[in-house]
């Protein structure tokens, strides 16, 4: 046991002495949470639009003003032709164009029927949909306002309540996801690189000859990163609560416990990668390709998993980040207890044990 701690101490000194790397390991997650928490969001607002008003009457002007005033839209310019609309789209300057035909108000008053055309840049379908929806509802409001005298019979009203995130803040969705991403990456990648570095430098053989069991050596390598990760978890949670206003509604202890579990899972992944990589470069790229992108995609915080083809949905199940993301959302944002997340926790535990098991076997095979 004592030898084990000596090893841990040596590993810790390695990290501690490389101040630059240590600095990055601690500060990067903080910078990222802040950046992504504040900047990453799917919310639609301040979208630039253009208005093509052929009518130029009271009605079209009023509606145009209402639209421009809305926080969803930002009037970039008024245009005078479809061609101009096309050109402006092509220059990437607007996402939506509103077209009022000639005689808009007249049609509305005399025939009780007028048209407005919304042209959306559907390169991003969701944004296009949302912008169209918002514009339509502003137009509907206008319609309501001129119909104030007449009340429609048999009206069904709908009250909508937004749960957990009434202001629809992007951070509520992204912060748990970024937590998963950052922890997974720091742990897995750094561990794998550190182990492979010893291999590459040749000091691995020296260590293997020492009296400590080889696998304990590997574990000793991961402990300092576990400590750094705990520091990261703490800073991320603090930032989420105080800087991003994302509350921790559930049990803090449970959240921290689950985070530590996930860290261990990531470290195990790092060990597995280090077994297969021969050079640090390979370790980094393998981590990047097999960790970063899948975590980004399959954890579910960026793209909805239910949209994916079945095959990919199945694959997403083996990405640990997916389960951790669900746990964080449930505990942190929904305020649920262990009863709601015990299944996911079990899955993470099983994954960790499996990863460690495979790594041990691989390691032994290599030595033999």
């Amino acid at each position, binding site marked *: 046991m004592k030898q084990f701690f000596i090893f841990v101490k040596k590993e810790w000194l390695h990290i501690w002495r*490389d101040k630059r790397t240590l600095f*990055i390991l601690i500060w990067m997650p903080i910078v990222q949470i802040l950046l992504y928490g504040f*900047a990453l969001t*799917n*919310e639609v607002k*301040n979208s630039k639009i253009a208005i093509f008003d052929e009518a130029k009457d009271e009605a079209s002007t009023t509606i145009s003003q209402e639209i421009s005033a809305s926080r969803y839209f930002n009037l970039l310019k008024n245009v005078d032709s479809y061609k101009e609309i096309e050109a402006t*789209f092509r220059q990437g300057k607007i996402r939506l164009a509103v077209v009022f035909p000639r005689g808009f108000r007249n049609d509305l008053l005399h025939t*009780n*029927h007028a*048209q*407005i*055309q919304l*042209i*959306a*840049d*559907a*390169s991003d*379908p*969701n944004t*296009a*949909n*949302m912008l169209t929806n918002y*514009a339509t509802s502003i*137009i*509907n409001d206008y*319609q309501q306002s001129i*119909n104030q005298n007449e009340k*429609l*019979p*048999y009206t*069904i*009203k*709908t*009250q*909508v*309540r*937004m749960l*957990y995130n009434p202001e*629809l803040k*992007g951070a*509520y969705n992204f912060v748990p996801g970024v937590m998963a991403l950052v922890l997974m990456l720091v742990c897995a*990648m*750094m561990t794998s*690189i550190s182990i492979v*570095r010893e291999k590459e430098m040749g000091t691995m053989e020296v260590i293997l000859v020492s009296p400590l069991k080889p696998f304990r050596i590997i574990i000793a390598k991961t402990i300092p990163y576990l400590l750094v990760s705990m520091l990261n978890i703490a800073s991320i949670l603090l930032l989420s609560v105080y800087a991003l206003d994302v509350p921790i509604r559930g049990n803090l202890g449970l959240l921290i416990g689950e985070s530590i579990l996930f860290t261990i899972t990531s470290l195990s992944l790092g060990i597995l990668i280090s077994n297969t990589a021969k*050079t640090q*470069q*390979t370790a*980094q790229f393998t981590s*990047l*390709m097999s960790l970063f992108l899948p975590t980004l995609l*399959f954890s579910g915080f960026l*793209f*909805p998993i239910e*949209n*994916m083809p079945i095959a990919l949905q199945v694959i997403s199940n083996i990405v640990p980040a997916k389960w951790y993301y669900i746990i964080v*959302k*449930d505990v942190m944002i*929904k305020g*649920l207890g262990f009863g709601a997340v015990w299944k996911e926790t079990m899955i993470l535990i099983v994954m960790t044990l499996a990863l460690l098991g495979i790594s041990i076997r691989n390691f032994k095979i290599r030595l033999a």
Partner: protein
Amino acid sequence: MRALKFLLQKELRQISRDKAVFRILFIMPMIQLLILPLAADYEIKNINLGVVDHDHTEYSRKLINKITSSGYFRLKDYSASFQQGLHAIELDKTDLILEIPSQFERSLVKENQSTLFVAVNAINGVKAGLGGAYIQGIIQDYNQDVRMQWIQYPRFNPQPTIEVTSSDWYNPNMNYRVFMVPGILVMLVTMIGSSFAANNIVREKEMGTIEQINVSPIKKTQFILGKLIPFWMLALTVLTMGLIIARLVYGIVPLGHYITIYIFASIYLLAILGLGLLMSTYAQTQQQSMLVSFFVTMIFNLLSGLYTPIESMPAWAQMITRFNPVSYFIEVMRMVMLKGSGLSDIKYQIFALLGFAIFFNGWAILNYRKRS
């Protein structure tokens, strides 16, 4: 300049012999490009619906039918109480609950109005927003149906109505793949370009071969160019393969010209490789350079507008994206491929990237010291 020719010869030979590099550079991106677009679909569909129906009348059932047959929603839970329905949301079985109060039909007839309650899991704001909008839209339609059924309208519509027609340009199928593939390609090329180049110089530092270069009459500029050009060619090759896959597998053909893409990509790569080289002149070990280039790449990627729109970001974040070469390329890729933009449409972006390229490479050359 002859020395440059020898440098290039050496680099290309070394790269072509490195099997691991080959796998990383070519095979992995291709796999990513084949899988990622399948996953990267933001479209809101298959929203899981939970219903709590206290009314149990013909009209409540008709409403529920209309919602489930719309194609947007899947009925996943039918509970007796709101509490139960809420539990389904907690477990992520449903995304949205519709609660129909008892006396729904009665109130509508007798008091001329009735209220429905919808609760939405708003953690994913877009899903909640669109889901809410869709269900309200369906309810409105249903409302109209009910009215038409119960009232005889005179021939003229007494109410002024504005009909809103919407057209979707550039992606009429509303296909997310078309939107994401160009962006994913950019991201892959970027990750490979900058990390690889950065790592290479540091590797030479660590191995000691850089000393032999420093002691020779090779000029700094020649050395940097000797690193820049091979990776530039490699990255363009990866880009080409990616464009071929985009065409063959996804049927994505640029509305604009391929040549526009290549011209822009060439300049872009100079910038991004320059950044990688710059980072490597500061790093002492591979571990450091990998870590830094990785985090910088991640920040650049996530804030590039690939996954989330730049307009949605707060002003200060948008400022940051102006210094992010990746966001320019994503924008240009989408513009050229989806809208057919030409060189004159993207001249602002070209100048910006030229600026970046000169800045990063210049700094790298200045910072690199043959003599310490």
